Structure formats: structure tokens, C-alpha cells
């Protein structure tokens, strides 16, 4: 019995760590730009495949795989800013929120299919992965899961430090809290947006490596985590980073138990039901405040 609980907890916490990492990227972009980046899923896939190319195709060491994922994600984020975000902010600022959602849906589909056409649709093995397991009395914990949770936590802490202690981080937070005031202080808002998208892209890229290590490397690998991460952001209150992280772990563990008890297909439906119930009760999310969003 205990080993079952341990197994489920391990599964839940691992997915929780992955969702949490995904929510950080999404929340960052939403909070500072009012943008739901529907291309985020494709960025996860991009990161996973970039690592694959670096390690399997080019024969470089696994660490370089992570670096490749970072780089690919950052580059994609920058491309998103230049080709979609900046033009849309200039041409139709009032409808930005919805326009950018649609445009990123398109961009995400295009990227996912570009990956599909480049690598093919058959599942590949993510080379940046760890083997083995830790054995305890209560059960075994695969090394892979420990690595994933560790990497995710390290990245989240690093992001928190970046946002809280650096000048760039303060500028990002200022832009998120009051864009016009930030401009008055001399903050180059366009450059902040670029930085946020690149940062979010980097996190997405690494997240993709982690996801594909535990499941498989296929082009649509990011769709499920992204949708769930979004839902978790929403339930916490969009823009509330700590809340989203807490919600990610909590809901992921619940999902894991539901999947164990009722079957894999019921995980997401139950999750969604919980989220909708919470939103009916508190439309701004569990910890959110009704914010007046201005673009």
C-alpha cells in the first residue's frame, strides 16, 4: 500500500514540478504583457528536439542538450516578439489580448508542424535522461524524477532571484504592475517585453526536455502540459506566480491519484471540473485580485 502511495506521490510531484515550471513562463508573460502565449506548447517541443539534435545527432554531452534547449527557446521567444508581439502592439493595441492569442495559436501550430516535418512524427527517445532508481523501504523513486524536480526547482528559484534582486527583474515587475509608470521612469518597455519572451522561451525549452525525458519526444508533447499549466494559472489567479506554483503541485498530485483510482483518461476531466468549480466560486481565482488590465 505504502509503495503505491509513494509511486503516486512521486508521479504527482514530478508532473507538478513540470507544470509549475510551465506556469512560471506563462505567468511571467501574462503578468507583464497581458499576453496568453498559445505558442508556449510548441516552445516546449522545440526545446526537447533541440536537446535531441545536440546530443543524439551531433553527439555532444547531455549538458549541452540543456544549453541547446535554452538557446532554442530564447531564440524562438525573441522571434515571437519581433514578428508578432511588436507589430500587434503597434497596429492594434486595444485588441492586443485577443489578437495575440489568435496569432500565437497560428504560430504555435506552424512551429509544431515544422518540427513534425523536420523530425517526423514517430516518438523519439530523449537522450538527456537519467537511469536508475533510489530504493527505500516504502518504495522506489526513479532518479529521473528526482532530477526533474531538482532542475525545475532550481530554475524557479533562479527566476525568482532574477525578478526580485536584479535591475532587469525589477523593471519587469514594474512594467507588469504599471506599464505607463514604468515608461515614465525611463524603462524601455519594448526591450522588457523582449526579455520576458526570451526568458519564458528558455524556461519552456528546458521544460520540454524534462517532459520528453519522462514521456516521449513527439511534436505535440507540449500541448497537454501547456493547457494544464494555463488552467493552473487561471485557478490561482492569472499573474499570481507563487499561487500558480502551489496550485501546480497540488492539482498535479490530485490528478495522479485520480488517474490511479479511475484510469488515465479521467485525470484531466476531474482537474477541469475542480478548476471550473473554483472559478464559479471565485471568478478571480483562488488567490487572485480582480485586476484592471490596461494594455
Amino acid at each position, binding site marked *: 500500500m505504502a509503495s503505491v502511495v509513494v509511486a503516486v506521490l512521486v508521479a504527482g510531484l514530478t508532473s507538478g514540478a513540470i507544470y509549475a515550471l510551465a506556469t512560471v513562463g506563462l505567468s511571467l508573460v501574462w503578468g507583464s504583457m497581458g499576453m496568453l502565449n498559445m505558442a508556449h506548447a510548441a516552445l516546449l517541443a522545440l526545446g526537447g528536439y533541440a536537446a535531441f539534435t545536440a546530443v543524439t545527432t551531433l553527439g555532444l554531452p547531455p549538458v549541452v542538450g540543456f544549453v541547446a534547449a535554452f538557446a532554442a527557446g530564447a531564440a524562438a521567444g525573441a522571434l515571437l516578439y519581433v514578428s508578432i508581439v511588436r507589430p*500587434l502592439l503597434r*497596429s492594434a493595441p486595444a485588441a492586443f*489580448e485577443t489578437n495575440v492569442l489568435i496569432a500565437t495559436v497560428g504560430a504555435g*501550430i506552424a512551429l509544431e*508542424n515544422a518540427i513534425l516535418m523536420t523530425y517526423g512524427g514517430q516518438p523519439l527517445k530523449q537522450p538527456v535522461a537519467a537511469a536508475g532508481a533510489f530504493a527505500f523501504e516504502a518504495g522506489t523513486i526513479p532518479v529521473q524524477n528526482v532530477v526533474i524536480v531538482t532542475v525545475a526547482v532550481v530554475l524557479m528559484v533562479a527566476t525568482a532571484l532574477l525578478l526580485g534582486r536584479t535591475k532587469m527583474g525589477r523593471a519587469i515587475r514594474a512594467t507588469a504592475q504599471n506599464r505607463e509608470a514604468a515608461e515614465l521612469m525611463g524603462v524601455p518597455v519594448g526591450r522588457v517585453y523582449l526579455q520576458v519572451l526570451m526568458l519564458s522561451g528558455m524556461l519552456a525549452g528546458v521544460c520540454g526536455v524534462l517532459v520528453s525525458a519522462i514521456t516521449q519526444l513527439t511534436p505535440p508533447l507540449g500541448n497537454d502540459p501547456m493547457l494544464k499549466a494555463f488552467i493552473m494559472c487561471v485557478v490561482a489567479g492569472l499573474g499570481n506566480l507563487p499561487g500558480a506554483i502551489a496550485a501546480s503541485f497540488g492539482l498535479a498530485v490530485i490528478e495522479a491519484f485520480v488517474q490511479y483510482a479511475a484510469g488515465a483518461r479521467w485525470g484531466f476531466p476531474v482537474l477541469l471540473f475542480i*478548476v*471550473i468549480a473554483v*472559478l464559479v466560486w471565485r471568478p478571480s481565482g483562488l488567490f487572485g485580485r480582480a485586476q484592471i488590465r490596461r494594455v
Partner: protein
Amino acid sequence: MMPEAAASPLPVRRRNTAARADLAVAFVLIAAAVALPFLVDSRYVLGQVVLALFYATVATQWNLLFGFAGVFSLAQMAVFAFGGYATAMLCFYFGWSVWGAIPVAAVATAAASLVVGLACLRLTGVYVALLTLAIAQVMYVLIVTDTECFVMVGSTCRQFTGGAVGFARFGDFGMRALLKGQWLVGNYAIVAAVFAVTTFITYLVVKSPVGLAFRALKDNPACAVARGVNRFTAQLAVFGVSAFFTGLAGGVYAAHFQAIGPGVLSLSQLLFIVAIAVVGGVGQFWGPIVGTIVLVAADEAMREAGEFRTLGLGIIIAASMVLMPNGLVGRFHDLARFLAARRAPAAPPAVSPAE
């Protein structure tokens, strides 16, 4: 001080011109629709036109919901599928005729959507998009992973929701019995009629007090709310109406093809609808129809391209949004305004009254 432009007759004249233009376009479309079966010999082409009519109907409903009422729902195909599945299941399990099943399915779809709407519509914009997307995803996954045998049909196992295979051969419009070889024309007439009626009623909704309320909400939300416009109830009403017609279209779709499966719920179908609306012009009444014509034609042209189809679709959506935020119809209006301004250079660059 410049003399203020008097309350000029221009707005009224422009309104009448707009209405007459709409009427003219409608007339042309109806004439074309009626003439089509006589002009077109190929069954394939007629079949594709029927498919295009379905797309146009759904896209018009999505445009009504999003472009006019501001409800960003990504569950449009789920609603469509609900109508189709409800129709198929009523026929399959209870032996109903499609003629009875379709309206009932449409009502059921509207009812189910109202429930979803009650839960989701108190949230703003993008939250609704996320939740409706999630709901559509859940519906798709639950159907596709349904493996439990519900009934035995002959020697094969049938799932309650039809599973990955879906439902087939549960009944049709009876056109084969009536028109024999020309049955497709009969179905075409039904589908075209459904499209015409739903588009007409959509037009009425847009021009109705509800539609005006939405324009007020869009232009000046604080003022509209102060005057008693309740965004929630108005959006819920449009949500229900649009769901009814989308579900209706879904039922007609199932009856026409005599099959319904989880494929309609796939993301690429939703994408096609969104692309149609975006290319045509979100919030423009004729946008979806223009978009359908353009994209179905482009899709036909890209038929050879195979895998590039989805990639191309993604690029089209992103590029259209960035380069033409108001779509083709929007560009057309810009051009018309530009030409009109050039024709009247003497008029002072007057303060244009809020239309």
C-alpha cells in the same frame, strides 16, 4: 474656432447605404446558391460546396459570439460535435428520424452550452478561451479513449460515445429515396437553406437591441453598464443562440454525411474555423463568408501539398492577424472609406459623431 460640423445627414445616409449594401450582397449570394446546382456538373465540386457551407455556418456563429458579443470561445467545434453526436445517438439508440432528431439535438446543445456559459461567462476574455479550449479537449479525449463496450452490434463492440470510430449509417434526409441520382442536390438545398436561415437570424441579432448593446459595451463599457446593459446576461443569450445554430449545423452535418466521429473535434478543424473568421475579418458580418471562400479555395489549391496544410494554416492565421487585424472585409471597408474621403475633399476634417 472652426465652425462645428452640424448634425450632418451623413451618418443616416451611411447607415442606409450599409443596409442596402448588405441586401445587395445577400441577393447575390442567394442567386449564386440557387443557380449553382444547375451550373455545376461535378458531384465532387457540389460536395465541396456543401462542406464549405458548413464551415461558413459555424464560422458565422463563432464570429457572432466572438466578433460581436466578445465571447472568446474555443469550444465551437465541441458544440458542433455535440449537436452531431446528439442527432446520431437519438437516431441510433432510439430509432428516430433525422428530421426529428436534429431540432431536438440543437435544443439540447443550446441547453448544455448555457450550463457551460453560466460557469464560464462571468470571467473575462481570455479566461473563457482557455476554459472552453479545455472543455473541448476533455470532450475529445473522453470520446476517443472510450473503450468500454456499451452495446453489441452484430459481432462488433460499440462504445456509448462511439469511441474513436464514431457513429455511422443511422439515417439520412431521405433524399436518395426522393431524388435518386440527384440526392446530393437535395441535401445541398437543405444545407444551403439552413445556412441562409441561420445567417439571416444572425443578422437580426446583430442589428437588434442585443447587438447594439454589445457595440456599446465595446465602445464604452463604463457608459454601457451605467445605462443598465448587463454584459453577463447578454453574452449568455448570444452564447445560447449561437450554440443552438451550431448544434443544428452539427446535426445536419451528421445527417448529410451519415457519419459523425471525434475528427470534427480535432484542433485542426477549430483552427480552420478561426482562420476563416480571422482572414475574413473578426467582427465584420460578411467576414466569415469571405473567409470561407478564400480559405476553401486555398485549401483546394494546397490539396497536393499534404503535410504543409496545417503548417500553412498556422502561418496564414498568424500572418493575417499581424498584417490584417481587421481581415479582408476590414481592408475593404478601409478602402471604401479612403475612396469616399477623396471624393469629398471640401468637407472639413470634422469630428465624426460616434456611429
